């Protein structure tokens, strides 16, 4: 069938010119890229004397964003599936202390396994409660936020757990892989796998279908309960890796690591164009959403704002961006 006799439904008698194509483009989904460029240029000009554009500063932005990016990739699946995971920040904290404690007791591999086990357990519990008992994920993960941070504080008696294992620190955040900082490699791996799985596998398609219209997905033969379980498991696992990246970068495990990160991760996902109502998700958009938040943080520090002012400006920018990207 030739292109010319395929009529796309919005095409009317008028010929399809560039203007109508532009009008049809769902720019809300791509507003993140525009916003990223605008904010970048803004800081580049405003802060040119403060070293914003120096390679070191730019690398720093990537490094500081890595943990949020890793969590946000998992969160993209959850939100695209029309659920939410508020527990990621405290799961990261719990994972960092479990890793640190297991490392000092039993060594490298048990340490890593302990961190992953945190994500596996918390993610499974979240997923099971949401999919089997039908409790809204908002409530389940809100409760889990408290439980995870409480456990992390309890088992450490609020004390930081230093990590003296150099291999671990090098692998998870402090070191470089060749010329590239490890944190950037970790982000890249998560984003690449996350993007391919969401866009090009049956699992990813079923996540989008479940989020877009659960009844339709169910009628098509998709086990939507299993999908909901799996996305929360993925999010928990991603958060536990983020916790290990905190531990490696800061060479310690501490219950505060990751505190409040759930908001940044959710903001990154929404800024990236993933629909809060489910059905559409973009991992690449999420990456840029996370980078934009990192960019804003960095710029505001360089501009000399103190942390209270930073929070106000950051909050305002996020609301503005989401307002621009919202559903009509």
């Amino acid at each position: 069938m030739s292109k010319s006799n395929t009529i796309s439904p919005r095409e009317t008698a008028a010929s399809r010119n560039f203007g109508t194509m532009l009008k049809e483009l769902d720019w809300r989904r791509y507003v993140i890229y525009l916003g990223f460029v605008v904010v970048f240029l803004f800081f580049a000009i405003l802060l040119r004397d403060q070293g914003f554009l120096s390679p070191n500063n730019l690398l720093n932005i990537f490094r500081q964003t890595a943990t949020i990016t890793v969590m946000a990739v998992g969160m993209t699946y959850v939100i695209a599936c029309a659920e939410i995971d508020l527990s990621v920040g405290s799961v990261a904290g719990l994972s960092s202390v479990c890793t640190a404690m297991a490392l000092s007791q039993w060594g490298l591999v048990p340490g890593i396994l302990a961190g992953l086990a945190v994500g596996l357990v918390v993610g499974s519990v979240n997923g099971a409660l949401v999919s089997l008992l039908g409790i809204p994920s908002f409530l389940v993960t809100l409760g889990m936020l408290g439980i995870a941070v409480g456990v992390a504080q309890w088992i450490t008696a609020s004390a930081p757990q230093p990590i003296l294992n150099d291999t671990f620190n090098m692998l998870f955040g402090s070191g470089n892989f060749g010329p590239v900082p490890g944190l950037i490699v970790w982000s890249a791996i998560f984003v690449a796998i996350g993007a391919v799985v969401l866009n090009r596998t049956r699992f990813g398609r079923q996540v989008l279908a479940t989020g877009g219209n659960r009844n339709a997905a169910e009628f098509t033969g998709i086990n939507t309960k299993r999908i909901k379980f799996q996305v929360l498991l993925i999010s928990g696992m991603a958060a536990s890796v983020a916790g290990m990246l905190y531990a490696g970068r800061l060479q310690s495990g501490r219950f505060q690591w990751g505190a409040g990160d759930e908001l940044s991760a959710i903001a990154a996902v929404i800024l990236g164009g993933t629909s809060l109502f489910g059905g559409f998700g973009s991992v690449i958009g999420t990456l840029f959403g996370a980078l934009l938040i990192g960019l804003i943080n960095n710029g505001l520090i360089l501009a000399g704002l103190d942390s209270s002012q930073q929070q106000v400006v950051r909050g305002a920018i996020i609301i503005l961006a989401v307002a621009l990207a919202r559903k009509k």
Partner: protein
Amino acid sequence: MNTSDNVVEMHSISKGFNGVSVLKDVSFDVRKGEVHALAGGNGAGKSTLMKILQGVYQADEGEILIGGQPVAIKSIQDAKAAGIGMVFQEFSLVPSLTVAQNIFLASEPLSAGGLIDDRAAVRRAKEIFADMEVNVDPRAEVSRLGTAYWQLTEIAKALSQDAQVLIMDEPTASLARHESEALFELIDRLKQRGISIIYISHRMDEVYRLADRITILRDGRRLLTDALTDVTPGQIVEGIVGKKIEGQMAYRARDHVAHDGPPLLEVHGLNAGRRVRDVSFALRPGEILGLAGLMGSGRTELARVLFGIDRLDSGEVLIRGKKTNLASPQQAIDAGVALIPEDRRAQGLILDHSVRDNLLLPLLGQLRRGPLLDSAKGKELSSSLIKKFAVKVAHPHRPVRLLSGGNQQKVVIAKWLGTDPDILILDEPTAGVDIGTKSEILDMIRELANAGKAVIVISSEYPELLAVSDRVLVLKDGTVIRDIPRSDIADEEYLQLAVQGV
């Protein structure tokens, strides 16, 4: 009967829910390449029977044969594997995915690496649409398409799974006439390819246009199965309603229109958006004005402007001779306008709330006692509305979603009449409502006009428009092209020609 011709046979199916029998000993069969209409009033058991065939429910008794072989259909997957496809009344696509992605959802073509091959999906979707002889862009995102395309996508989805039988439930409910005609032609082509269609519809003309045979259910029992050539429309209606309701769709001349007084509503040179262009008309107390036009002719948009939902760009609206600013629904309500919207489930009702709460929602202002609501007065008011409009409800506390479509519609109408509006706009008031309730709603409209209210009725069903309207405005591309007194309209055909602009 030659059994081998039957693609589907359902023998002596019985089904009950919580001890209430819904289907009693119903047998139903579909021949290869036939269109078999399934009719019956609300609650007759049509949807239960079809859900058993689709694997949503399991029959308590009876057996199902597909292609002569007994099969157990325990899930939707079993039904699909057996070649049963469905085109849902309430569409079941994922709006955020493309047409091709929806067609192959959960059976995506994979490339060698195990990843989804979207290009192959698009190619195969194109082939399916080419076979169907329709033009749909497989790359278009479903949410951006009109309902007609959704339906085509659903049909393509079923065909991609080698469906031998398609179940279509009120497929034209949301289509304009030319889209329906295109669908009918598609059904004819599918028939020629040997695909059987079970066609559920309230619309008699469609049933006659398409179906080879008809089965009528009443109260969970099969009333008849016969070739359409042997059944008269009167018999079908009688079968569905259970009593002869001759002439209920006929126009009854009413002399309540106040011709001498000033018009209640005057619209001069109204423009709004792209769909309302230079519309002028007047409406008198006691008059029922029908709005006819194809889907997209601007009927609904005109109603939205008059109810203050959409802003008007230019022109003026006079109510009782006074220029009125309709910038919000609240202003419209204050000016005495009420709109009963097209999609009652989405726009007219809060489905999980009780019948009473829904009825009282527009009236909360009248029920205040100090800062609180006067619940005794509310109870009294809602009970009187329920009685007045004969809403069949066990208790006003019951959620609205438990009511039948017809009774839900009565609640929507009653809800707005509680505000005692002078001008009432009804958009598709009887869509998806069974014939018995339909005539009750039409009677309700007539009574309201007799009581001196001005009524605007928007409907795609011409018999219904002709039954109630004193005057019909024909809209095309947002403009009034004809303003015809009812007495000048000889029959439905005349009106159809007017709407087509011939």
